[in-house]
């Protein structure tokens, strides 16, 4: 439980917009331990998504180090970074980001094409769809599903390569309270099974359940609460 899985050291992220440089993150230092459930909260534009993108290696910091199990992700090449994303991180987006031309089953299977992990069995896809309660909708297209169902498919997709970390950016932002509740239950169970969950959210129920809350404000960690 105390094993550090992600470490951010003096991380800065700047964006150039025209002639202006905007510092989205300033001197972020953060340790994330295995099986933690972390909620990142803060107002819009505070740097939540940027922080999640850096942890998930979707972006590179302007300065500083991001270590995964002691390996500096900022020094990795495209192949190594892609392998990290495919095998160690599962992403869940506010807008679900399913591939509309593929059915539910194919969407869930998609990350396995990019993983070099051995021993994948296609039965796992149905197991995951059962876990998120969508076994019956396996061969439906995303557009035939409700928002809550689509988000559950996205969770199944994020889990298919059995990653250590789940990164979710406003996972309930587009959902009603009932569907948000279902997603929260799934996250609770996943966390209990040992997954590290890092999410940016405004949903108080998700925040309440977290064992650590990081409050970002204007690109800096303003407060941190540990339960």
């Amino acid at each position, binding site marked *: 439980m105390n094993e550090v899985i992600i470490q951010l050291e003096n991380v800065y992220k700047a964006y150039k917009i025209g002639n202006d440089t905007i510092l989205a993150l300033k001197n972020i230092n953060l340790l994330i331990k295995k099986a933690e459930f972390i909620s990142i909260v803060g107002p819009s534009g505070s740097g939540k998504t940027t922080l999640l993108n850096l942890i998930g290696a*979707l972006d590179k910091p302007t300065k500083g180090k991001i270590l995964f199990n002691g390996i500096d992700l900022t020094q990795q090449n*495209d192949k190594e970074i892609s392998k990290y994303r*495919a095998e160690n991180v599962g992403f869940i987006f506010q807008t679900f980001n399913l591939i509309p031309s593929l059915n539910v089953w194919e969407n869930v299977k998609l990350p396995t094409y990019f993983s070099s992990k051995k021993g994948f069995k296609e039965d796992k896809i149905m197991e995951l769809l059962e876990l998120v309660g969508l076994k019956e909708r396996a061969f439906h297209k995303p557009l035939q599903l409700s928002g809550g169902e689509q988000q559950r498919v996205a969770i199944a997709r994020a889990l298919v*390569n059995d990653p250590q970390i789940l990164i979710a950016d406003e996972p309930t932002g587009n959902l009603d309270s009932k569907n948000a509740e279902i997603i929260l239950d799934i996250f609770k169970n996943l966390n209990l099974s040992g997954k590290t969950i890092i999410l940016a959210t405004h949903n108080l129920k998700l925040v309440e359940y977290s064992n650590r809350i990081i409050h970002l404000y204007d690109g800096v960690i303003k407060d941190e609460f540990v339960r």
Partner: protein
Amino acid sequence: MVILAFILAVILGSIILGPVYGIQNYYVKTINEAGFNVIAIFSGNIASSNSYTLPTNFINISTMKYLENIGGVYAISPVFLAGYFSFGNSSAYFVGSNSQLKLIGSLELYKGSFIKDNSTNSNLINVDLGYNVWNKFLKGVDINQTVSLSLIVQFGFSYKYLNVKLKVIGLLSERPKIPSINLDPNNVVIANIFDIFYLFNITNYNSIPLDAIFVSASDFNSIDNLENKIVQVLSDLGYKKNVDYMIVSQKDAIYYVNNIFNQFYRFLNIIWAAILAISSLSILIVMFITVRERYREIGTLRAIGARKIDVVTMILLEGLVLCIIGIILGMFLGYIIINLLKMYYTFMQTVDNSTIIYTFSIIVPEIIASAIIFSLYPAYIASKVPPSVALRYE
């Protein structure tokens, strides 16, 4: 849109290049079929710069024996144009020759026997009839039948009519017409040259110029060598090339045809390059738009572990699949359009299936190459976009 660009490229390419390949193939094939390693020595009226002039030194039958003894001669035949027969709007040339013409001209008999070498003293002249003569102009005529025809002979600016009785001893199968040469081998009536001389009451053969002598070399590659020997022999006999005679070989004809078509190809290749450039540009633009519209999808793929090379491969494969669909549809439509055009344009009839396949074999790889090249840049650009940016793209 991309498929449409490929379809149009294939159709335009096949319609522009196909007929030209077809016509060239037809010309070369016809020249090859017209004879076997042939060298033609034209005597009689020789073309000078602007007009026809009569040579002072005629090539006649006595010249033949000098040429017969040159090494490498496979067959040699005199050709004497005696006049022509009129059949309504069509006409058939009355040609005096010998049986060697069959070997030289690869003339195939449908029935009967080729003209005999020995002259006859009868009023009947043995003849072989060209395909159109027996099959169209004198429909129903057969071997051993006698026909009476009016032979039109030109004397200067006036015409003389001679009634001749012909005995049909051979019927020639259909022959391809050599383009740009007026003498259609289907519209000939071939008789023994000595029978014709007899008909014209010519006793001193050396006083009559031959219209041509056809010589056949033992093989295609020795044509040039034999031609040089013929020129040497004729020179020794006092004949001046291009004054008393002209010499043309089958090789010259093929070279001439290929030369003209090669120039034409250079011009057509510019047009084809323009078509390819326009289709490539539309592929580039459409692929850019398609890729831009799918940034979020590409970002998602990158987020779940796709490498840059996976994104490039995916977009290239998509471009290639669209290209192949377009090519298949374009080939299908191109084939139909060419066959429709064949119904309305005679020159298109030279475009046979093998020419269409040959044309496709030239243009399809070029289109595939352009599809790959012009999909590569949008694919590269897509792979370079950071996933975090692609995921935010609206």
